[in-house]
């Protein structure tokens, strides 16, 4: 069952740093089978739309993006993921990110027990201090253990 510290909802957590590297972009593009030649070009290499998921390499755990919330990982589902792109992100950028829990909703599951929906948001700024993107995700802690 989720433990929720409501006083921390909306509060930004500590900042982290993420370097956007051309080699990582090429590796990521290959992993999502995207042969767009733009991802192999040597300069101004654009980041693919879901590249910000590589933030996982720059933080201790993805759970860090959920301030004030402790979830049972055996019951956790990734419900939704949203990206808002404000400015281009390219190889050579050094991004500063911070995360917060935007909202937590709970409702009764169909077969009893409580379902918890956690909406997390991460903001990314570039080396010029400009916001480049927001990434939001909805994690769902189900009432029962996740079935196969």
């Amino acid at each position: 069952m989720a433990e929720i510290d409501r006083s921390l909802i909306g509060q930004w957590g500590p900042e982290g740093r993420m370097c956007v590297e051309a080699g990582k972009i090429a590796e990521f593009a290959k992993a999502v089978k995207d042969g767009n030649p733009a991802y192999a070009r040597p300069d101004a290499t654009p980041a693919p739309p879901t590249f910000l998921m590589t933030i996982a390499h720059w933080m201790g755990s993805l759970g860090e993006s959920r301030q004030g919330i402790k979830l049972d990982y055996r019951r956790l589902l990734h419900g939704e993921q949203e990206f808002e792109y404000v400015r281009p992100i390219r190889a050579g950028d050094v991004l500063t990110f911070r995360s917060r829990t935007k909202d937590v909703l709970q409702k009764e599951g169909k077969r009893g027990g409580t379902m918890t929906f956690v909406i997390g948001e991460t903001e990314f700024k570039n080396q010029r201090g400009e916001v480049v993107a927001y990434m939001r995700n909805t994690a769902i802690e189900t009432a029962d253990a996740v079935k196969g």
Partner: protein
Amino acid sequence: MSWTFESVTEGQALPPFVVEKLTRTDLVRYAGASGDFNPIHHDEEFAKLAGNPTVFGHGMLTAGFVAKCLTDAVGVENLRRYKVRFATRVWPGDTITCAGRVVRKYEADGEHRVDGEVTATTQRGEMAVTGTFTAALPARG
């Protein structure tokens, strides 16, 4: 070539992108690229202990395939918003078809924009991912 605002009509389909027979190697490659090392996506024993028949694909891997389908049409840096919802899981051996369409064409914030819907469907006809997007397209003027 990616789309221009004038060339696009409401209801227009994105050219589909098909990933034939997903492999375990594909899952491992995405784990390394993304940094998402949840063992449920690569460790057979772990996946089975958690009650699954085998390992299954990261939702964000499928979302990455859909993003490729999307940006081939609209252009990488023209995407303004991309949102996905995860429905059913994808398994090794699955063939995933990414598709989508334009729903609305309009001008906002000085840009020529389109909103649309995207999907990723397995060979069983199951929806793995559904999503929406907004893109700003180049216009003649």
